[in-house]
């Protein structure tokens, strides 16, 4: 599929205060590749994904998406539009948002709604997000992300997308993500999910190394 995104990360450093939590990471991902990122808690996986989205400041190095090194606010906005994101942590506050309102923010809301139904969360459309279980919430965010892919996003960044799911749900979501024809970067502790990916990167103390079996 021509829409898939290329991702080039070179010598990336991201810090919290003066502590580097992503430390000199370089990574080249070809369009359409599926890459799993594994590693212990606190090794910098979430920060890496957030830096790609422009949600965490880059201290050194660069991230090039589709040959664009984002600099202006407009560049970043355009990049965010090219990416479908499943965040690890949902909702900072307690402000209510309905499931259908979240799905409507997908780049293709119709597809997002269809997928929500397939993932058995379609009937929850009128519920506020904070009244869902962790697993239901992850399904809703997955439906939204897949709608965005249908709407033109070329890169899926999924941060522990199956962490709150039951076994059946984990297998189902792994299959759905594996079927995507875009570039996929998925943080996971789930072996099934990792085994569906062509490459595996392990992070430890902010550093990344390829451990593809």
């Amino acid at each position, binding site marked *: 599929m021509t829409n898939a995104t290329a991702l080039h990360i070179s010598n990336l450093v991201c810090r919290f205060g003066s502590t580097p939590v992503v430390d000199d990471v370089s990574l080249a991902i070809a369009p359409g590749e599926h890459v799993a990122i594994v590693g212990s808690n606190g090794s910098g996986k979430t920060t890496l994904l957030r830096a790609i*989205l*422009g*949600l965490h400041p880059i201290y050194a190095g660069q991230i090039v998406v589709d040959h664009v090194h984002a600099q202006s*606010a407009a560049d970043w*906005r355009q990049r*965010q*539009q090219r*990416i479908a*994101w499943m*965040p690890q942590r*949902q*909702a*900072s*506050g307690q*402000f*209510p*948002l*309905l499931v259908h*309102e*979240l799905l*409507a*923010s997908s*780049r293709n809301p119709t597809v997002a709604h269809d997928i929500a139904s397939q993932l058995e969360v379609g009937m929850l459309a009128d519920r*506020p*997000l904070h*009244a869902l279980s962790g697993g239901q919430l992850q399904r809703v965010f997955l439906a939204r992300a897949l709608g965005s892919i249908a709407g033109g996003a070329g890169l899926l960044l999924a941060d522990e997308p199956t962490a709150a799911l039951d076994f059946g749900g984990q297998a189902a979501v792994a299959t759905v993500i594996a079927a995507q024809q875009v570039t996929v970067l998925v943080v996971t502790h789930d072996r099934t999910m990792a085994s569906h990916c062509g490459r595996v990167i392990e992070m430890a103390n902010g550093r990344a190394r390829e451990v593809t079996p």
Partner: protein
Amino acid sequence: MNLDTLVGLLQLIPVQRAIIALAIAGGAFPIVGVWIIGLNIVPVRFAMMHVALLGIALGMLIQLEPTLVGLLLCGVTGVLLAPLAKRPAGLSGPMGLVMTMAIAAALLVLSLSGVNANGAFELLWGSILATRTIDVVILGIVATIIIVVYVVKKRDLALLLYDREVALCSGIAVEQLTMLLMFVIAVAIGAAVHLTGALLVDSVTILPAIAARNLGRSLQHMVWWAVGIGIVGNLLGFGLTLVLNQPPGPLLVITVGLITLATFLRKRA
């Protein structure tokens, strides 16, 4: 009090103006309260009260209409604060700083200009019974702006108030929208302080919004609840003021406050 006295009071022009002003404020300003809760910037009202005071002092110094300078300065400060929203710690801390700096600067300006500080405070702390026609007009304009921004931006607002980052990654121009909100919030608070007095700011903004937070399950539900409670609570409180022959500020806040308290009970149930 008998009915005749009440009817007599209702025929007084200041009383009628107060009722109109409260209905307008109660009908629109609670929307701003909902934004304030969603952005988690409850201290904004203290900060903006003091910025308004600084603006009034500056206006007196340079001999421009102090109220307008106050509103303008509120709006500018709101816009300047907006970019700080992207820090993880959000806007709460800077609000406290702005408040302290503004009051210090205001006192300095007042002292430099040699104007009587009481004069500035009188302009700042309005009273609902002293509402002039021009005040009602300003209130109407601010209320219209609030409602238009809400209606036009409803969908983006719902996402932004839920989670700033999810909104960013949905292609919403989050920084511009935050600036717009901060501008309207700041001007609305400046206007509310001037028109209704410091105490009443809460009864038309934060209190109905807190109640709505307990009752509403979406932004839209919250806004309907907040506006309903804003109008009913404030008019009811004003009615009590007339019947009991007491100053309006405390009774209005207590009435809306009790309604808000009741919503916590319902939430628990």
